[in-house]
């Protein structure tokens, strides 16, 4: 790898202060540090550091998303051809499904990365920072939570909105309080409802005659039970957003995230606990058929699992204290099921419930930390009283 290093060393002066391409130095730095871990050494404090850096952290999350993404690409193709010819089985015309899926999904990924990274690089340059790796994950999450037919210009617009308004105005990666990927989706959802709601958007170029309703939509409109079986919802062979349908692929990602400890198991577990809690309450007290649907159906329908594994666990926008994480996750689960069952307007509650709890996460932390502060103050007071008695 000597020659790459030599090449980089050769061109590096151009990007340093006073060089011709100084205005691109953040960009150069991003690519250089991608190829080589920098030669920087510790200057203050501890003289050695853990080998883990932000790049590896983010790449692990991207890896965790890959199974769901690959399944999503295939499923986009399958759903399309299945809507034209309902007799097709899942593995019929394997390569044709993949081809169609790629044609549909790749452009969305490219648009989201190009728009988002361009803004990130520009802001890094403007602020004199290094480029943060956070968008490597966000840029992949965005396509996975959108339907395959969403117009590309809308993706571009929504991504720009989320990155600038949701993240950069607050100071960039690590400073945002709303999950940027979900913000993208929320922007599209409210600005262009036609692209993100109804029965006709969840299958790419759906044949008109075919009903493309997702299980969530079916249940909301009063079906007795979803037309898809629990198993097919678990496997993910149903219409929906690109990456959200296959619980099994999401589980693979979850295993990697928990195995490496990158995502908080407390949040993941508590989202499911919260969902189960609310689901069971409705199972007991609910009167309509949707309320009577066994609670675990909520885990396999819509974006519940995807949200719990990849969205709620975003460390920047989640609660940061250990106790806070339990509360934050639990309430996400509760709210998601509550919105699904009670709210008449939106079939899916996961996006809104996570965004809502993103907003409340600092408040939860505030109270958790305050308990610690109160304990300390109490100790001080007892001490002060002791002293006055002794005097």
């Amino acid at each position: 790898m000597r020659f790459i290093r030599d090449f980089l060393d050769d061109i590096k002066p151009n990007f340093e202060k006073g060089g011709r391409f100084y205005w691109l130095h953040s960009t150069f730095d991003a690519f250089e540090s991608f190829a080589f871990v920098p030669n920087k050494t510790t200057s203050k404090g501890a003289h050695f550091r853990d080998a883990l850096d932000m790049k590896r952290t983010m790449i692990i999350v991207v890896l965790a998303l890959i199974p769901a993404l690959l399944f999503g690409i295939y499923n986009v193709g399958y759903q399309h051809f299945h809507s034209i010819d309902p007799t097709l089985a899942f593995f019929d015309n394997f390569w044709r499904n993949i081809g169609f899926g790629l044609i549909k999904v790749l452009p969305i990924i490219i648009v989201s990365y190009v728009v988002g990274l361009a803004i990130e690089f520009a802001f890094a340059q403007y602020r004199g920072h290094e480029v943060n790796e956070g968008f490597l994950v966000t840029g992949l999450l965005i396509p996975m939570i959108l339907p395959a037919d969403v117009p590309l210009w809308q993706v571009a617009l929504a991504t720009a909105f989320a990155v600038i308004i949701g993240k950069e105005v607050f100071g960039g990666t690590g400073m945002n309080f709303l999950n940027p990927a979900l913000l993208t989706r929320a922007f599209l959802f409210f600005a262009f409802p036609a692209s993100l709601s109804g029965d006709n958007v969840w299958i790419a170029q759906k044949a008109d005659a075919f009903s493309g309703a997702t299980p969530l939509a079916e249940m909301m409109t009063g079906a007795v039970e979803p037309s898809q079986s629990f198993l097919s919802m678990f496997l993910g062979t149903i219409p929906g957003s690109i990456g959200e349908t296959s619980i099994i692929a999401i589980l693979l990602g979850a295993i990697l995230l928990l195995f490496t400890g990158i995502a908080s198991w407390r949040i993941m577990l508590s989202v499911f606990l919260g969902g189960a809690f609310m689901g069971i309450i409705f199972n007991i007290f609910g009167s309509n058929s949707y309320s009577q649907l066994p609670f675990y159906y909520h885990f396999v329908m819509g974006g519940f699992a995807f949200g719990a594994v990849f969205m709620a666990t975003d460390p920047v926008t989640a609660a940061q204290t250990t106790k806070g994480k339990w509360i934050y996750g639990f309430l996400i689960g509760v709210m998601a099921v509550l919105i699904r069952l009670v709210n008449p307007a939106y079939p899916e509650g996961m996006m809104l419930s996570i965004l809502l709890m993103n907003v409340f996460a600092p408040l939860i932390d505030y109270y958790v930390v305050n308990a610690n502060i109160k304990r300390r103050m109490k100790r001080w007071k007892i001490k002060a009283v002791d002293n006055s008695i002794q005097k």
Partner: protein
Amino acid sequence: MSDVITIKKGFDIKLSGKAEDKLLSCSGKNYAIKPSDFVGLNPKLLIQEGDRVKAGGKVFCSKKDENLIFSSPVSGVVKSINRGEKRFIESIVIEDDLTNEYEDFGKFSLENMQNEEVENKLLQSGLWTLIRQRPFSTIANYEKKPKCIIISGFASYPLAPDYNFTLKGRGEQLQKGVDALKKVADVPIYLCTDYEKTYCDELLLLKNVEIKRFKGEHPYGNVSVLISRIDPINKGDIVWYVDAEDLAIIGDFFITNRVDKQKVIALCGAMVEKPCYLKVKVGAQIADIVGDNIKKDKKIRYISGNILSGEKVDRDGFLGTYDNLVTLIEEGDYYEFLGWALPGNNKFSLHRTFISGFFNLLPKKYRKTYSVDTNLHGGKRAFVLTGDFERVMPLDIYPLELIKACIIGDIDKMEELGIYEVDSEDFALCEVIDVSKTNIQQIVKDALEQIRKEVEQ
């Protein structure tokens, strides 16, 4: 015997180059006192270049309090006074003339002395400076007595010297030191020892102290942790603390009536050819300590103190006043191709994204020993991951929240979150495992400095 205090959180990092139980002596030529070793000290020189001082003779005092005297470790001639930015004195170098002359403090014995006499003797001899206080880790204020005194009888940082070995045969000195402390401040004195590792009679048979035994993993030996489990600091509280090694020096003064700042330090780290213990005088030159006992053809980082919170020094730099070891590790100024993507069996990590991270989940004795270098392994980022710091923070504080309060300089918030209970060294492990490569210890140090200045005004 007392109860065992178990510290659950923390992590012992096993590093190669632990000192073997072999004691060598080290005779150097140059010794230095560095005013920067003492938090918040503004020195006023009492000698000039070319003056002659005896061991224990006055070198400088504090500008604020001229009773606070700093004395020479050896007899010799003041060779140079090195100044840095804003003419702040960086070091006063004294060349040993090998005459071993000691400053005369008269004949005295502890038993017949009044409390104030003991205090005065310690101040005049410059040995008072070995007693420090929390909060802020400044030299103890003799006008304001503490609520208790802590003696650190063990250390938990990586490659820590074994106190059983370094204190061997110095039981009498230690006891005298304890008695002297008792005279200076009639408060409870706690001797903190390691439940599993401390076995020497020199420590365990000390009288006039209450022995507290600790069990756990680093930072269970940090003074903040010891205090938090014995008698936590509240706002306005003061706790004094002395390292056992320094206590022996104080005790020796009351036995021999002269200042002999001799201590046993460890020379350790992966870049040391034969790690060992050395008998040195405080302020010895690193080059004299290390000699040619180093790995050849390597770029070496010299650290006075431990690898987590010690000070980076040059080869011709000097041992810090409170430091009990010199650590040598390799400099890591190399590029690594796609380094962030490798499985990383040999890289130290507490995160399970590396294979080594899994080994580090195992109990202490099965863990791998690492030879680390100074590479930062990445670039500086904003804080993103949460929940990591809590794993290595045994104090009842919220590390991330406190660090953020320190960054914005919000003193009220810092007080509420427990800044008085910590020192920068308590965040060393947080700093090591931090993915965003923030210099956390510096942040805490600056914040403590900010509060200290505010309080002292």
